[in-house]
């Protein structure tokens, strides 16, 4: 059964899209990630124009992160004050990102930049995760205790001015690194269609030394609002949010996620991380191959344009 996607302007098999949404939902439930970084490349592999894939991916992120955010809110594991500072940076970052997105699109370099960013990001994050999880598995095999994270010494980040007290996180921290982190993640959200949790969570833990118990909830809090804002801005400046595609993806995604969570609880942490790392690397490699092999047609034509 085919369904016509009005904004992507092509007909797709609805079962492929449902399957994609369910598979990514399953993985995101299993690994506790948003899934934006998988959904966008998969859509691109399925010939959805990257401009539409990114904006629609952000819409899917809203759906997949909101239930997590609600759960954390009920449990009281969101530092709203910290989240608001992150969000402030995130909104500015998303605005700049959408502006860059439009600029690159006019220049005809958007598809290339999206692919390159994915290759770099997925390659490095996947590589690091694989390295770390293999190390943990080796230690577990030798019965060595896994290294506990030490609270660590203060680094230069903690010497920055404009300090603020975040009561829930029990830290006293400059707003500069927090807002900067939010800004960078916001830019990634609007250019790549990802929530950015897979970068934000480690950055909050290792760089900002924020207690682990509030990290996931607070990052979800920021992701929900920044991705919702991105969808709004993309819809009103680039007209690239495909509501039909997004809806099919999110319905399949939220159901898949429920089953993913159940399977995830039965697997061991480091095995889970190694699997996710392999998956992330595979997607990155596939995108890299597409950049390198000679294209079928070196020419392409689009309507519009201003002659530069």
């Amino acid at each position, binding site marked *: 059964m085919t369904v016509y996607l009005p904004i992507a302007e092509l007909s797709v098999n609805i079962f492929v899209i449902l399957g994609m949404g369910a598979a990514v939902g399953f993985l995101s439930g299993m690994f506790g990630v948003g899934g934006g970084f998988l959904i966008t490349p998969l859509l691109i592999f399925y010939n959805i124009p990257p401009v539409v894939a990114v904006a629609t991916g952000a819409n899917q992120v809203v759906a997949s992160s909101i239930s997590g955010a609600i759960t954390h809110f009920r449990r009281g594991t969101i530092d709203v004050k910290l989240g608001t500072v992150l969000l402030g940076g995130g909104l500015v970052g998303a605005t700049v990102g959408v502006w860059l997105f439009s600029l690159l699109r006019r220049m005809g370099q958007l598809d290339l930049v999206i692919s390159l960013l994915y290759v770099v990001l997925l390659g490095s994050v996947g590589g690091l995760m694989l390295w770390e999880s293999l190390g943990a598995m080796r230690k577990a095999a030798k019965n060595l205790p896994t290294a506990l994270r030490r609270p660590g010494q203060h680094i230069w980040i903690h010497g920055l001015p404009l300090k603020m007290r975040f009561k829930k996180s029990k830290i006293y921290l400059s707003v500069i690194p927090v807002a900067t982190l939010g800004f960078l993640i916001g830019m990634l959200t609007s250019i790549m269609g990802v929530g950015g949790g897979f970068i934000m969570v480690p950055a909050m833990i290792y760089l900002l030394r924020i207690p682990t118990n509030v990290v996931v909830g607070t990052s979800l809090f920021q992701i929900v609002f920044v991705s919702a804002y991105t969808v709004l801005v993309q*819809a009103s400046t680039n007209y690239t949010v495909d509501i039909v595609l997004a809806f099919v993806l999110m319905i399949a995604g939220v159901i898949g996620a429920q089953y993913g969570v159940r399977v995830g609880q039965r697997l061991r942490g480091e095995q889970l991380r190694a699997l996710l790392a392999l998956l992330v690397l595979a997607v990155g490699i596939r995108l890299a191959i597409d950049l390198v092999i000679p294209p079928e047609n070196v020419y392409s034509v689009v309507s519009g344009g201003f002659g530069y």
Partner: protein
Amino acid sequence: MRASLRLLLTVLVLAVAAPVAAQAPERPLERQITSFNEKLEIGISTDEIAITSDFRGADLTIFGAIDGFDPNLLAQGKYNVVVTLEGPKDNATVRKKERVFGIWVNMQSMTFELVPEAYSLSSTRDIATIAPPRDIANMGIGVDHMRLVPLGFFGDGSNLGEFRNAFRRLREESGVYQRDPGGVQFISSSLFKASVRLPANVPNGIHVVRAYLFRDGLFVAAKALSLRVVKTGLEQAITRAAHDQPVAYGLLAVALAAITGWGASLLFRKD
């Protein structure tokens, strides 16, 4: 046969009785034809086509008649008709990928000014055999003679031909530019029927049907009709909403995501 003739006559009467649509912008060529007796009349049953979302392309039939013809020449088959359907115009940018450090990157680009988004041509024979190629080219009939003027172009023009060819090829491959040298048929001595193809991805807007009459290789008369193509259905409503009400559309998309996510967390809640 008789029924179809009657239908045809009705269509022709309609076409004559409804000259509203017939006054589309014409090329100055029409001035030179005053010395000929022949006149061309064309008609379509409607000036608006509503296309549903499951549209997979269709043939549009245009009826026409030649008035004031020379019976001898007609009997010898010296009259030829070319019918084109030209879609709304927009700029089009062609880009060319080149290898840079092993990666394929869009490097050169060229924007052509106001080219039709769709173009279908039908004729009684191959247009190259209807009139001298230079005349056909001057009149801009056919994809090969379409005016492709680069916008804001500063280069030396050495790659102009390359980009024009690429543009034509890409548009023909995607099916929005088509030709059918046999799509116009005489159904009686001076009545003809032309079928032009509406591609599956036909653009919305005002399309112009043009008919050209040639007598023994000479351009004699032309006529134009405009045709409004309106897409209908849910998908079209969504596209329109996305472009006309982008903020409301964006809010709806976010709301849909929020409800789906929240609904799922309620539905699958364990505690």
